[in-house]
């Protein structure tokens, strides 16, 4: 139904896309800090991070969202639906991406740290100038996976009343009784967003691999 498209489009643009982008980048920041804390931080911090990752990965996202939105008011913390969803997704992305970040940081050879130290860099400089730029490149494919999963997972925010794409579809179905067509339209919107992201991933990977070179590598 053509007149359903604008409202689906707006729900996507106003809620699904911002929720995805915000929680991904905030989550990535959380994930990076968590990974660094786990790898280089003092022991209590590292244990705390492991607990956090264990907790988030071991419980359903839907349960986490319900706890934040419906559970926290019982202890006096009342959040609006969008904020609750943002916190939930950020914590989720943070936990999953911290494992990815940890793995890619460990994948950078020790010799690269030593080369950075040998020219007088501090730990921070070595991290920022040498390790992270190389780690980003390895991290793009697995992080893109997280990103694309997240686009689809944001549909769970419908359950805590965020009027995002899926909930907008539900509303239209409630008045039009056209579940087949409407939900196909909803699916196509998700597909469109994740396809755009996949295309961006390919471009980014291409850009980041520019230093691979093509000439024969002689010894």
């Amino acid at each position, binding site marked *: 139904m053509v007149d359903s498209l604008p409202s689906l489009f707006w729900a996507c643009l106003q809620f699904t896309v911002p929720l995805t982008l915000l929680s991904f980048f905030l989550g990535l920041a959380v994930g990076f800090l968590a990974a660094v804390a786990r790898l280089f931080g003092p022991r209590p911090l590292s244990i705390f991070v492991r607990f956090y990752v264990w907790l988030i990965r071991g419980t359903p996202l839907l349960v986490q969202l319900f706890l934040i939105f419906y559970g926290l008011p019982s202890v006096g913390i009342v959040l609006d639906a969008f904020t609750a969803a943002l916190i939930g997704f950020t914590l989720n992305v943070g936990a999953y991406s911290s494992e990815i970040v940890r793995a890619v940081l460990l994948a950078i050879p020790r*010799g*690269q740290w*030593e*080369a*950075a*130290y*040998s*020219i*007088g*860099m*501090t730990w921070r*400089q070595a991290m920022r*100038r*040498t390790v992270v*730029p*190389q780690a980003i*490149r390895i991290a793009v494919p697995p992080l893109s996976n997280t990103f694309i999963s997240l686009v689809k997972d944001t549909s769970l925010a419908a359950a805590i009343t965020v009027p995002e794409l899926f909930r907008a579809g539900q509303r239209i179905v409630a008045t039009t009784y056209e579940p087949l067509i409407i939900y196909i339209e909803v699916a196509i919107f998700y597909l469109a967003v994740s396809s755009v992201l996949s295309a961006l991933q390919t471009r980014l990977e291409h850009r980041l691999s*520019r*230093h*691979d*070179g*093509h*000439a024969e*590598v*002689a*010894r």
Partner: protein
Amino acid sequence: MIAVEGVHKSFGTNHVLKGIGLQVPEGGVTALIGPSGSGKSTLLRCVNLLEVPEAGRIRIGDSDLHFSTTTKVSARAMLGLRRKTGMVFQSFQLFPHRTAVENVMEGLVTVQGWTSDRARDRAVELLDKVGMSAKADAWPSTLSGGQQQRVAIARALAQSPDVLLCDEPTSALDPQLASEVVDVLLQLARDGTTMVMATHDLRLAAAIATNVVFLDSGEIAEAAPSEQFFSDPQDPRTRRFIYR
């Protein structure tokens, strides 16, 4: 003036350096030779504190650090000493995400805070010195091992260190590519660059070194001026190693 005194270093139960003392004359090339596992690389890595000794003293110019199990040397002091050194690694370890010239500029820009233009001028000058200015904008992955090592030498020299530390600089290279690296090192030696070089390549040591230190099982078996060392070795272990 570079001096190492009473340096001990262990990895777990493996006592790798057992009280090493060493004076490195300025403007000369000191070769650390010895069989594998003798501790020559570890000793070299103790000089720029990539490995921190458990005990002993490392002195380069006005940086004079004492290590013991009871005191902790500050990170700042260690950084200060390390910044008086440059290091060349067996496996080159160029930064793969930076071009040749960017590799050489890196320390000048990040550590010294130079502007990128000024650093580039200096880097190109150094690449010229090692015969690599034509490849300034090449990615490391497109360079041969010998070329990568020459860029790595330029990178190590960029901040005008008091001493250039070379850890098996030619071991990963076949003879032809090794010789282009040796030529560069020889030229640096003639220019009076102070170098300490860990190597098991006796020909490289004989060609470049002014002084030779022979390590065996974490101890100095013999230390002598190069000519004397190779013509008239005193210690039986040294003889066995040279004449084998």
